[in-house]
């Protein structure tokens, strides 16, 4: 995973310090765990607006 992350960032022109490679892999594993909390079927009806309006449209 660490090498894959390194390659993606390098392709975007970003130099990644060696010390960050393993840390980034761990962080992205944590992101994956959070991603697993998202149930996309529950989100389908929510239109994603480009501007965020607090207290806006009600059901």
């Amino acid at each position, binding site marked *: 995973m660490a090498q894959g992350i390194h390659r993606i*960032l390098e392709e975007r022109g*970003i*130099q990644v310090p060696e010390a960050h490679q393993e840390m980034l892999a761990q962080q992205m594993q944590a*992101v994956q765990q959070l991603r697993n909390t998202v149930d996309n079927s529950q989100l389908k009806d*929510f*239109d994603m607006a480009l501007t*965020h309006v607090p207290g806006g449209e009600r059901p």
Partner: protein
Amino acid sequence: MNRELAAQSIGELAPKLRDKQVSPVELAQAVLANVDAYNGEINAFIRVQKEQALESARQAEQEIQSGNYRGFLHGIPMALKDILYFKDEPATMGSKIHEGFIADFDATVVSKLKLSGVTFHGKLNMHEYAWGATTTNPHYGACKNPWDLSKIPGGSSGGSGAAVAANMTIASLGTDTGGSIRIPASSCGIIGLKPTHGRISKYGCFPLSWSLDHIGPMTKTVFDAALLLEVLGGYDPKDPTSVDRPTQNYSGGLNEDVKGMVIGIEESYFFKNVDNRVNEAVQNALQQLEKLGARIEPVRIPSLAQAEFAELVTITTEASAIHHDNLVKQPEKFGEDVRFLLEVGELMSGVDYVQSQQIRRKLDLEFAAAFEKVDVLISPTLPFLSPPIGDSTVDINGQALSFLDEVIRFTGPGNLTGLPALSIPCGVRDGMPVGLQIMGPAFQEEKVLNVAYALEKLELMQGQKADLKVIR
């Protein structure tokens, strides 16, 4: 010189300045004397502007003497986070990259404070580019917590929290993208108010994450926070996220009566995995509010389970978009922690970002439904007490957990939804202050302020403040 003056609030000082019992020059000197005495240790300032402050104070004195008193803020010394633009003055954003940057216009909040007659005496330390919550700044030095110099003051507005707590400024402003006003307010034992998104203009504030950023007051009292909100709030066409909703006389309308008020608690999210010392202080505050006649009502906001994902993805992605060019061209000029987080943001997918915005819509609706049943929601501001400077973990009931994972767990939902949220100290445990968070419905800051006012009147801190005598 009477340095005690610097320990007073705006609400205490303003009538004395108006009635010429205290001179703005005397007050500025008292605040600057505290900066001389404490800043060497605390390091809350990136730049102290002594001459400018005294000159401005002399002008305020002249105006007041000649009968041109401008109002509550006239002659009040303030220092602001070094992320807000002052025309023709440097703004570093706590970074090396912007070290030589000179702003060519005033931020809207700065313009409003200048018009109100505030005297400015410096720019405050912060987490680099506001992208972190420790204020352990690699370029300007670590800012220390006045309650315990070995601990962090929180961040990113750590200099603002520390300066207010150590009486090195009468009040300040912070910015808040995941909790950066409320976290240092909680850590330093002061009031921090993040208003509704769009209530205070962000024009002239360097962004961290456009859709999550807020500006708000950091003060010694609830009255001062209310006062600053009414001065700073209001529509600004220069800020595309500014909302044209009427502001109120928040300070004049403060009401400590909570009888009949319904206070919501979301136990499955906001009270899960909280350090016992913090939980005890917050539960005590809730009991006190019940004794005053408020009713505690459990609520459920199911999508909070996805809030951490949405906050992490939104903040990292937007911040990395803002800093992308510098991450490519001069990455070595970022501090290690900020560089790492910017790399993380480059790895999020477009789908992650869109889903995060969908989660925000869902959260908006669920919070709005909860506020049909309750007036405000109360929670701890942070699940832990301030950790030592340099630690990457926090202690929650004997477990060492990641600071990064824990720090915005309770404050982040306020940024995702844009709802108003305030942190108020509710006790001291093991020598450190505990913050309690009050969230309210959109554009109803008065509800949040009134509950905070009731808590302030309960004197849960029992007069305890940072012990400045131990600081040389």
